[in-house]
């Protein structure tokens, strides 16, 4: 049998296994396991968040991560809203971003009187402003107009007392006063009563600053970096084509927090549609929908 060693063979070297390729299934299995591992890690790994991984060195440190009450709770809530709404442009560190938004840390505007500070998130800010000796000329949408009084008060309190700012906390009542002062330019009740629903809707469109993002008379929005909609806030002149009145009111009330990205790996677009339901009254929403429907260019017919 050939199984037996040939006694004449010289065995002056150690026998060795020759190199064989790794079986394909092992490579595939490895890749699949690593893929699943990455998915699992992403879902449950908390991305090395301090609160999950860091060993607590003292009871004080642990207390830092516990739910807070009173003023601290308001500030924590303010921070959460800030990070979600304002931080995209002003930075979670309050340092602002060149070409996007001026800093809030150390800004003289932030610690001014509450009314003028609240005016910015409530009505937006267009045009030149000097912050810490530097000139800025940008457009900000009324990002705070869609927030409730307590939410906006919490945000303002947070930015006035963070990053070294030495301002006072802001109460929900102060925000309410500031908000009603802005409404002062709006038509009076007597004037409103004489208007048609479309005219009243136009007043609503102005009152809540819809034009800041969607343009005057909804004719075309401001740029919205990395938004899938051609990096623009959509114009509103064709909503009559795409929505029933009920659907339109539901959409405005619900808002749209997640704006699809043009480049999926790029940054989140800075502008999104706030949730207006808690802010604009049902009657106003109805008038607003009538106004928006009236914007459709006359005589255009798509034939379906």
């Amino acid at each position, binding site marked *: 049998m050939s199984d037996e060693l040939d006694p004449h063979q010289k065995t002056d070297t150690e026998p060795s296994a020759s190199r064989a390729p790794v079986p394909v299934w092992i490579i595939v299995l490895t890749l699949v396991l690593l893929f699943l591992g990455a998915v699992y890690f992403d879902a449950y790994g908390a991305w090395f968040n301090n609160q999950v991984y860091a060993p607590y060195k003292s009871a004080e440190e642990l207390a830092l991560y516990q739910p807070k009450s009173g003023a601290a709770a308001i500030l924590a809530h303010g921070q959460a809203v800030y990070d979600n709404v304002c931080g995209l442009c002003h930075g979670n560190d309050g340092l602002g971003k060149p070409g996007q938004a001026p800093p809030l840390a150390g800004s003289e505007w932030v610690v001014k009187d509450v009314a003028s500070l609240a005016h910015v998130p409530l009505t937006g800010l267009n045009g030149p402003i000097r912050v810490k000796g530097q000139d800025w000329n940008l457009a900000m949408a009324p990002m705070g107009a869609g927030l409730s009084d307590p939410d906006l008060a919490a945000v303002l309190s947070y930015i006035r007392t963070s990053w070294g700012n030495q301002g006072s906390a802001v109460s929900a009542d102060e925000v309410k006063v500031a908000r009603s002062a802005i409404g002062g330019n709006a038509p009076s009740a007597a004037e409103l009563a004489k208007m048609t629903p479309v005219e009243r809707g136009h007043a609503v469109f102005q009152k809540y600053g819809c034009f800041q993002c969607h343009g005057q008379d909804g004719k075309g929005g401001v740029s919205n970096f990395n938004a899938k909609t051609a990096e623009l806030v959509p114009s509103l002149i*064709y909503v009559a084509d795409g929505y029933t009145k009920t659907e339109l009111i539901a959409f405005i009330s619900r808002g749209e927090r997640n704006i699809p990205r043009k480049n999926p790996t790029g940054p989140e677009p800075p502008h999104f549609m706030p949730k207006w339901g808690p802010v604009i009254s049902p009657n106003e929403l109805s008038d607003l929908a009538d106004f928006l429907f009236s914007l459709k260019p006359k005589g255009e017919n798509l034939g379906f």
Partner: protein
Amino acid sequence: MHMKMNKQFTALFVGVITLASFGAGVARADDPLDAATQERINRFEKGPAMIDVSKYPQGIQDDYQVFSQKCSQCHKLSRPINSDYALPDEWSRYVKRMMHKPGSGIDSSSGKAIYEFLVYDSSLRKKAMVDDKLARLSAEDQAADQAKIKEVRDKYDNK
């Protein structure tokens, strides 16, 4: 020999990193929408991602090409295919809503092709849903929707 091993290892390493980051990306991508809407979309998207149009008239098969090319730019095709929209009135509204989004790349003629495909397809594939929805409408709306279905069916069937 050594070089070759290195090369193999590098290829494997690059592959693993690519896949791993892709895995992370997949998990990242599902940002929470409003829960009810998300649940509805998920339900639709779980269904089949294509329609067998081989028995449809040639014109509708052409429209299906427009539909599958344009609508899959922004969302899965299974979403409209399995959605609970069925009536011409609904499709007209939703197609227009999508085509008016800036950068949709859907002009009025492709918008119309998509609309006609969806109405035609719904009248057969979702017939039960169409009938059910029609039965709930006012006589006037019912007549309007029926007329629109007939218009599309006549346009393509009688060729």
